[in-house]
């Protein structure tokens, strides 16, 4: 085992780690040594092909097929230089005030989050997609909402030079999405921060980490790691964990920190989601243009769901429809005529839903669908079907149907009757989640939380958390901008603490 020494180690390079790296990089000019350790590879620009299986395998943890313990939900999260910011759609929202009020974290206000996020919105070129580049999949959503008297909103997105490939979730092949891989990490590196890819952190000890660097296999995508393959012990005066809501709690648990932090791993939420699909009588522009331009959140508080436009790829679409056989094939073979909506449930923390580790120290995600989540998904499915038919769809796929999963337009008046909560059967209905939150929630003491309001782990002066695992409850919107704002708070605290710790 080789030994190395750094002043600050940041674990993970997504919205949290990338932001902390950038914000701490000015310290390098004063001789502070900082490294980011990233488990995934760094791809060259020309390696982003947009091919579904090829890109999923290389950019997502477990190829995008990470399952919860009872295997009823798939969790999608990135594992590459830039973390999940490589594979999201760039949606850049701030949370509703009521969510931050409900979090009730001392010293954390929406104003503070907004102030910090505004800077990142400018830095990441957040904008609205120009109207003439909105595709019909999105327009039909807006039209359907308007017909129903509902107010859809346009997503601000962090794009620069978007060509409308629609392949955001497979890593933008045109490098238009302004994730940390395009903005914060390059800036951090130019300021003197080292980014070490293919480097998995096995455990942390008292101001040290044990890591394993993997060899780049022959023919694999991405650059080799800057370090030789093998195991390393790294001394660090400050450690910042930004490995995400699954891997940060898991790393802390396998490092034995659960004994002094009883809430570690608890409070996991994820916005469980499924895809609704409808068929129109004519081809529409769907697999071109930014896929996620509009959303509807007016039912979040009452019925616990948010709707977003979306457009996925052949396998993910096929997997996301319930059932199989001829009825299933009929929808897939209508791809050029398909409209899609993503239904996200707003889930509250539940004592069962948490991260643990198995005998090998690998993360295990326990998640059960609470009545609130089931209600949100079913109500969201119903609302989506209404939007589809209001927009002129001929038929829609209804995963939570009491009978056939196909509902024809002539039956649009019977949607309430045809859509039932009893139709939500875990293990049958394909549910997935990409907004993974909690596990190291902020709060007051170790009795109610893992960190304080600035990501400082209770009782461990050299350890910080800066990712979505800090969320004490679900955010109800796409999380990346909030993660960046919280990471900025953490970085600010580290800069203040540095004279005592370094």
């Amino acid at each position: 085992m080789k030994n190395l020494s750094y002043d600050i180690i940041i674990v993970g390079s997504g919205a949290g780690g990338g932001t902390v790296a950038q914000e701490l990089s000015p310290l390098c000019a004063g001789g502070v040594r900082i490294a980011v350790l990233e488990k995934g590879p760094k791809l060259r620009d020309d390696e982003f092909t947009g091919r579904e299986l090829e890109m999923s395998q290389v950019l997502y943890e477990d190829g995008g097929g990470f399952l919860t313990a009872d295997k009823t939900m798939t969790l999608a999260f990135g594992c590459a230089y830039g973390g999940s910011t490589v594979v999201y759609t760039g949606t850049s929202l701030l949370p509703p005030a009521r969510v931050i009020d409900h979090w009730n974290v001392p010293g954390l206000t929406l104003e503070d989050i907004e102030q910090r996020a505004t800077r990142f919105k400018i830095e990441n070129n957040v904008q609205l997609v120009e109207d003439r580049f909105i595709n019909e999949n999105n327009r039909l959503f807006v039209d359907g909402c308007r017909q129903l008297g509902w107010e859809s909103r346009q997503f601000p997105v962090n794009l620069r030079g978007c060509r409308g490939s629609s392949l955001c979730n497979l890593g933008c092949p045109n490098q238009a999405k302004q994730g940390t891989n395009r903005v914060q990490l390059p800036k951090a590196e130019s300021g003197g921060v080292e980014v070490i890819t293919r480097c998995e952190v096995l455990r942390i000890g008292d101001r040290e980490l044990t890591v394993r660097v993997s060899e780049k296999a022959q023919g694999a995508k991405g650059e080799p790691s800057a370090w030789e393959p093998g195991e390393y012990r790294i001394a660090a005066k400050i450690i910042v964990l930004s490995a995400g809501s699954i891997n940060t709690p898991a790393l802390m648990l396998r490092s034995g920190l659960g004994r002094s932090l009883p809430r570690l791993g608890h409070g996991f939420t994820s916005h469980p989601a499924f895809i609704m699909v409808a068929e129109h009588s004519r081809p529409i522009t769907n697999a071109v243009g930014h896929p996620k331009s509009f959303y509807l959140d007016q039912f979040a508080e009452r019925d616990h769901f948010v709707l977003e436009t979306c457009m996925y790829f052949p396998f993910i679409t096929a997997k996301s429809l319930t059932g199989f056989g001829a009825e299933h094939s009929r929808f897939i073979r209508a791809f050029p005529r398909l409209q899609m909506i993503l239904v996200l449930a707003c889930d509250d923390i539940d004592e069962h839903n948490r991260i643990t580790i198995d005998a090998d120290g690998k993360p295990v995600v326990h998640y059960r669908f609470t009545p609130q989540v089931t209600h949100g998904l079913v109500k969201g499915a119903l609302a989506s079907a209404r939007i589809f038919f209001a927009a002129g769809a001929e038929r829609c796929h209804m995963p939570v149907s009491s009978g056939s999963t196909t509902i024809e337009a002539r039956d649009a008046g019977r949607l309430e009757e045809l859509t039932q909560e009893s139709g939500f059967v875990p293990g049958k209905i394909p549910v997935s989640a990409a907004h993974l939150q909690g596990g190291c929630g902020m709060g007051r003491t170790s009795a109610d939380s893992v960190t304080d309001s600035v990501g400082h782990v209770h009782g461990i002066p050299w350890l910080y958390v800066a990712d979505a695992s800090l969320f004490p409850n679900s955010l109800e919107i796409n999380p990346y901008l909030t993660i960046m704002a919280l990471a900025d708070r953490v970085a600010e605290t580290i800069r203040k603490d540095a004279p005592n710790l370094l």
Partner: protein
Amino acid sequence: MPDKDGLTAALPVLPPVRRIFRAVVATVVPEAAGLSDEGWCDVEHMVETALRNRPEAMKRQLRLAMRGLQWMATLRHGKPFTRLAPPLRGPFLASLENHRLKIIRVGFWGLRTLALLGYYARPEAAQEIGYTADPRGWEARGIAASENRGAGPA
């Protein structure tokens, strides 16, 4: 030590259960019945690629699930799944999808996912279903996206 995207050779999952797997795929995706030998090789290649870096325990579970399918069909119909007449296969799989035991539903869901992955992750399938996404985006459809500068700061 192979990394997450490594192409290191791993033992293939499907050969011991190939007949069962193909029968499942052809039931889940009826169009698969028309695949050539080469097409089936592509389907299996997709699945093996997706499973290459997954834990051995998971691969064993998948093989076990396919063998369990044979056994459950024998219990219900007196013959294994691969020997059931095609019209019986769909209703049998539907009974697993809707089974009262979650473990059975989840097991079938896993097989169904692999079947869909094998079939629809192939480039040929994208052509079949009319999926036309292109990295060049709007330009591939004759619309100059270089003018897409956004509607101003949000």
